[in-house]
């Protein structure tokens, strides 16, 4: 008898455990009757983690009894772990209210109606204060789907001692930036036994399209058409193939590593580096002995387009959000003038609000001024296409294939075909 009872209890426990997991979507209200708003964003540096703790505490204090804000920090690593988590939440209809997404994926979520337009979340005055580069990246089909606090840019860092020793010219204005030939010659000249001339691989994931797309743009093309519907004829155009071959020449001649060691430039093992704006803070704080400088992103020979990468993570509102008024309140709080400024300061990235630059005066001085200048004048956001996830993965794969010996045209043709296939399958009218 005892056994039977025990078995029955176990069975009931197992079955009830299952049912608890598949109930209706839960009301997002806590026991105190407060509307619970959840934010998902990638785990970040300690300074930013502290920023979140402080701001959430402040918000919850101010909105006691009505809104409770909470954040879940999700490990991103340099792979697609964050996206995997989002994918799972989409299938189970369990997305947070506010979801941080990387700039170019704003279009992907918008096109699939995972996120909602937020044009009416901010006043016109507020929108006017946000930089065009950021608004542009976050716009899809004429509507704004996300808002970010920070921007980013990439420029060419150089080891001043090595450049002086080799007698290499350092550009002083953006019109005067190194051409590809100059970049190549310098990298070649600077490559020594233990030092490579340059570092062009930020990481082997999103870092590849983020930095290297500029070589396509500078050469008069892009990875995909402006409306994001066709990659064939762009990524694999003659200009695109030329860009890929140029980058490959740096790898093949040993002027750049395909597997750079961690902090290669910082440790004096690379003479130059295509590095992000956030490296300024790292270099200042952790590598005080390195004599470094930073100059403009290289441009294609014979009048190439002046260009530089932009785009950063930004917050969007998902279709699973329930209390949109509360979400609006949170968004207005997180992206207020003050909070954009303090966030940008904590993460050492250029802010997205023009008014923040009045406070962050360091952006008026070199080296940060150079990134601000690039951002305002030469920045190009990454492609806005619902097929961006495929384009990004295919482009990375194509570049790594080229660097390990595949013909550039062949590799880029394959990337174009895969991207267009995805677009035509799901998004073509």
């Amino acid at each position, binding site marked *: 008898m005892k056994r*039977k009872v025990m078995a029955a209890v176990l069975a009931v426990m*197992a*079955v009830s455990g299952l049912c608890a997991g598949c109930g209706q979507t839960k009301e997002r209200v806590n026991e105190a009757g407060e509307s619970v708003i959840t934010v998902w964003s990638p785990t970040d540096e300690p300074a930013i983690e502290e920023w979140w703790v402080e701001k959430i505490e402040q918000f919850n204090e101010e909105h006691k009894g009505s809104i409770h804000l909470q954040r879940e920090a999700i490990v991103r690593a340099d*792979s697609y772990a964050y996206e995997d988590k989002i994918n799972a939440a*989409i299938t189970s209809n369990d997305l947070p209210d506010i979801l941080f997404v990387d700039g170019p994926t704003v279009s992907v*979520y918008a096109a699939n109606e995972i996120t909602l337009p937020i044009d009416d979340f901010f006043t016109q005055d507020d929108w006017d204060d946000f930089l065009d580069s950021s608004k542009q990246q976050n716009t899809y089909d004429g509507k704004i789907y996300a808002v970010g606090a920070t921007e980013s840019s990439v420029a060419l860092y150089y080891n001043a001692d090595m450049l002086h020793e080799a007698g290499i010219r350092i550009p002083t204005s953006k019109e005067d930036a190194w051409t590809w030939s100059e970049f190549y010659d310098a990298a070649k000249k600077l490559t020594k036994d233990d030092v490579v001339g340059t570092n062009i691989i930020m990481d082997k994931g999103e870092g590849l399209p983020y930095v290297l797309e500029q070589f396509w743009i500078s050469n008069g093309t892009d990875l995909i058409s402006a409306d994001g519907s066709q990659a064939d004829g762009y990524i694999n155009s003659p200009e695109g193939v030329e860009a890929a071959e140029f980058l490959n020449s740096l790898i093949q001649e040993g002027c750049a590593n395909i597997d750079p*060691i961690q902090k290669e430039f910082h440790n004096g093992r690379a003479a130059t580096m295509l590095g992000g704006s956030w490296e300024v803070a790292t270099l200042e704080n952790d590598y005080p002995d390195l004599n470094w400088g930073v100059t403009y992103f290289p441009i294609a020979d014979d009048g190439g387009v002046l260009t530089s990468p932009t785009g950063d993570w930004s917050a969007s509102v998902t279709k699973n959000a329930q209390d949109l008024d509360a979400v609006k309140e949170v968004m207005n709080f997180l992206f207020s003038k003050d909070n954009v400024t303090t966030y940008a300061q904590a993460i050492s990235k250029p802010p997205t609000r023009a008014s923040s630059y009045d406070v962050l005066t360091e952006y008026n001085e070199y080296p940060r001024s150079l990134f601000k200048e690039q951002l305002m004048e030469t920045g190009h956001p990454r492609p806005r296409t619902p097929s961006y996830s495929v384009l990004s993965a295919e482009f990375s794969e194509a570049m790594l294939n080229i660097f*390990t010996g595949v013909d550039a045209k062949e590799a880029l043709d394959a990337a174009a075909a895969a991207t267009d296939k995805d677009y035509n399958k799901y998004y073509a009218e």
Partner: protein
Amino acid sequence: MHVSVDKKSERKAAYIFILPAVVLLAAFLLYPALQTVRYAFTDYNIMRPDRIKFCGLNNFIELFQDKDFWIAVKNTLHFTVLVVPFQTVLALALALLISSRRKGVSIFRAAYFSPQVTSMVVVAILWTVLYNSNPSSGLLNALLVKLGMEPCGFLNDPKTAMNSIIFMSAWQGAGYQMMIFLAGLQGIPKDQYEAASIDGAGKWKSFLYVTLPGLKNVISYVIMITVIQAMKLFTQPYVMTKGGPQNATRTLVYYVYEQGFQKRNFGYACCVAAVFFVIVISLSIGMKKIIKAE
């Protein structure tokens, strides 16, 4: 009469006891497996769970013309065919080495087993550093250069990438099989060895005619589980190579992940998974038949 009532109620109790396990298996194994087969016939994109359309055999037709799929099949077989004998022989050799009752042998036993208790992700990251193609940062290449040899591309060279993963996987996995072999070795009666030595058998002969036959069942079990594990190769390419360079390490399970989660073609990924399931099942049945026939 009395007996049969007892039996009846015992049977009832037995059914109730297995109920939780059956319910859990049905919910977390059977149901998802059936769903996978169902989705294999749809155009399910993970971003649009509310717009799933039935598309007949389209996915399967596409699959059989998909070059990348066949490369993944080839890579998975390449890995399995090489890693299984290598790892099994390595495990057996280690087991023989430490089966003697000499002093200090337990230290070696722990040492050979330790990669097994370390998470594969950690091991893979460590080996990525060891395999770095640059002699100034990759330990193995530094060694090669010191010995006056050319540095090797390892994970960056399509010709060596898969073999590098095979070597590292066998190193990591052999400890587990070694333990199974050790248990098997202890099951061989000592008097058989004595008899063999009286008949004049040396070490090699007694290994060939006593140890191997005595381990027959254990060996077939080890081969079976290693094959199934090898077919599921995912972590190493995910962490170390992302399926590259030039598709050299894209395995079937990695391809399922890539299609389903990275490119969000969930329907197509389910189709690959279904075909993969058929491949693994037929391999297992085939192997069982061969082992039984012997």
